[in-house]
């Protein structure tokens, strides 16, 4: 197993970072209200990042989770207002044999797809989901309600977890056929929606519902690493330039030591998030994914909260980006199970 990056992977990161640094500016992220269609079009079209992990026979590049992770981490760094995380987790969750129609359109970015998993009151626990699928002619129809659907209001197709005759499965539904209630969100850079289904036509596109949750965990983990790294860099830059008591804040040992501890947390988060991606194809993923989500979102929260504190008054203003990182970190931490819930999952799966 590899833990480093190939030259091609490093090139990919450089390319994506250069593109996002130039185009996904703070002003544009703030103006996007969660979705910058032009940015998305160019990411999919010019950079082709939507196609990375999709098999070549479905129009993709046949790369791996690692390449997707690189883009996700970079997306986290700029709080990308585009449905990259949603589409790549959906693409990874479906069974290629069942989703041969969908994958080429995912690869070329012509459809926005997202996973609809959580349910009101039942949260992220598959065993408690009540959404049902029934056979109807060649296909299925879906009934139920899904909540916290990331990018749910801009998706063209939604991949919904539902139970059919006691068997859980993933069903693709056209957005035009369902009722969507967009939410305002604490994190203004990624919106969520509530989706309601009443006898909505659907097609079976996958069977592994638990893996869909794990993919979201891992994706949020690596994205959170990007959030944490960018927030830490912002803070380090501030401390090196801002003067107090006649010297840069970076001279104060109490602050230096806290920054060092944040860096340690970010390193650990990076390691656990990337470990999860490296074992995405193995049984280990069932534990590594929730563990990565726990460790990385905790680190991102710690870094972004301390970032506000270390910036002082300016960090508490709307105009400074510190709060955007903090809000994304907060959302990523609370969605898909908080730390306590994730520890329960891990304990059960590891037999602790």
């Amino acid at each position, binding site marked *: 197993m590899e833990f480093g990056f190939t030259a091609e992977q490093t090139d990919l990161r450089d390319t994506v970072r250069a593109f996002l640094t130039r185009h996904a500016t703070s002003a544009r992220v703030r103006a996007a209200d969660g979705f910058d269609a032009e940015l998305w079009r160019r990411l999919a079209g010019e950079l082709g990042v939507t196609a990375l992990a999709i098999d070549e026979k479905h129009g993709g590049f046949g790369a791996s989770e690692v390449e997707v992770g690189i883009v996700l981490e970079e997306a986290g760094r700029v709080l990308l207002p585009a449905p990259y995380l949603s589409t790549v987790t959906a693409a990874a969750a479906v069974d290629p044999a069942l989703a041969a129609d969908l994958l080429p359109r995912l690869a070329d970015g012509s459809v926005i797809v997202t996973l609809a998993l*959580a349910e009101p009151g039942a*949260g*992220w626990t598959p065993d408690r989901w009540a959404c049902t699928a029934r056979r109807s002619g060649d296909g299925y129809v879906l009934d139920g309600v899904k*909540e*916290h659907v990331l990018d749910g209001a801009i998706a063209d197709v939604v991949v919904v977890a539902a139970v059919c005759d006691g068997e859980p499965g993933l069903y693709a539904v056209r957005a035009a056929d369902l009722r969507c209630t967009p*939410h*305002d*969100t*604490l*994190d203004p850079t990624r919106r*969520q929606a509530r989706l309601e289904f009443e006898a909505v036509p659907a097609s079976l596109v996958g069977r592994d519902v638990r893996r869909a949750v794990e993919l979201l965990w891992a994706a949020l983990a690596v994205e959170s690493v990007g959030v944490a790294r960018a927030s830490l860099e912002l803070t380090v830059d501030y401390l090196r330039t801002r*003067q*107090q*008591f*006649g*010297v840069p804040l970076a*001279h*104060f*040992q*109490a*602050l230096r030591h806290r920054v060092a501890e944040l860096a340690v947390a970010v390193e650990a988060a990076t390691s656990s998030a990337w470990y999860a991606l490296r074992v995405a194809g193995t049984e280990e993923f069932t534990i590594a994914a929730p563990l990565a989500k726990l460790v990385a979102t905790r680190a991102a929260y710690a870094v972004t*909260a301390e970032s*506000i*504190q270390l910036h*002082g*008054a*300016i*960090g*508490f*203003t*709307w*105009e400074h980006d*510190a*709060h955007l990182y*903090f*809000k994304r970190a*907060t*959302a990523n931490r*609370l*969605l*898909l199970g*908080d730390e*306590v819930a994730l520890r329960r999952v891990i304990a059960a799966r590891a037999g602790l």
Partner: protein
Amino acid sequence: MPAVDDIPNLPDAEFRRRVREWLAANLTGEFAALVGSGGPGREHENIELRTRWEHELGAAGWIGLGWPEAHGGRGATIAQQVIFFEEYARVGGPGRLSHMGEYLLAPTLIAFGTEEQQRRFLPSIAAATEFWCQGYSEPNAGSDLASVQTRAVRDGDVWRVTGQKVWTSLAHVADWCFVLARTDPDAPKRRGLSYLLVPMDQPGIEVRPITQITGTSEFNEVFFDGAVTAAENIVGAPGDGWRVATGTLAFERGVATLGQQLGFARELDEVFAAARASGAYDDPVWRDAAVDAWVGLQTLRHQALRTLGTPAGDLPGVEASVSKLLWAPWHQRLGELAMTAVGPTATLADGGLSDAQRLFLYTRADTIYGGSNEIQRNIIADRLLGRVPRS
């Protein structure tokens, strides 16, 4: 020994009854709409109505309760002041507009001001006919008062003030600002400052609201461009500003702490209620953390009672820093607990921020304003370990 012998049960029942009755009789009619407004994250709400409410408070003698009677106060005991806070918080009295004058400027004038200044300014604070704001923090000074760069120069009968202040709450409603300004650029940093009282309504002053992470604007930037104030509007001598301002900062965290805790208790109750609604309450791990928050709140109260009950010097010392380092992080953790109480729904903000979200976001400032955690730790360390050069 200055014992507070009517605390903790604060059995001054008669005084409490009077406060309660007055609030019950007066926080009604148009003022009923103010209940719960103007608190953290909502300081911008209902300014006009809250101004009239302040007039009512002033007319009834509730402003300046703890000032000596010679200065127009009631000479109320600490316990009575706490009772007023408690009862005011209990009924959800609106966030105060006059508190900068009442709790920061007035004690400063009583300690350091001239008789003329006391006569000129204290009555209008007590009557709530003039509101005040605080001009300390600057973009390049932060918590470091000694680094203030705003300049004031004497020009005949006036001081002319030029510079920029930030983190100035309620500047847009204030009639006056107490400003820390550098009047002697050649003196050592702490010796070159003066404490000036500057009228806000003049061409040389511009107030720009700062939008905070809550999306609302409780704080402002204030730009002084040759703003003037009469020569006599200086508290203490020129060059005394640091000493005068440091005294005022300490007053800020005085008796108000105990009253504040009733507000905290109400917030904690709401967090428990939210957890019952979401099911988080049934999670032993969540509940353990919540009970620890309750324990922390009791400790805040024990700390405040002990501090009030034991002798202190003329100017408060490190007790204020200890108190701030106890309550500010505690309150911040309460904000985090509120979010986990609500659960994933706390990521949604339909119709604006929820109480939990407002608490969560607003408490990020608690550890920054009014002397950051870092400044408070410096103060305590100076006392324990001796002063050393900063950094």
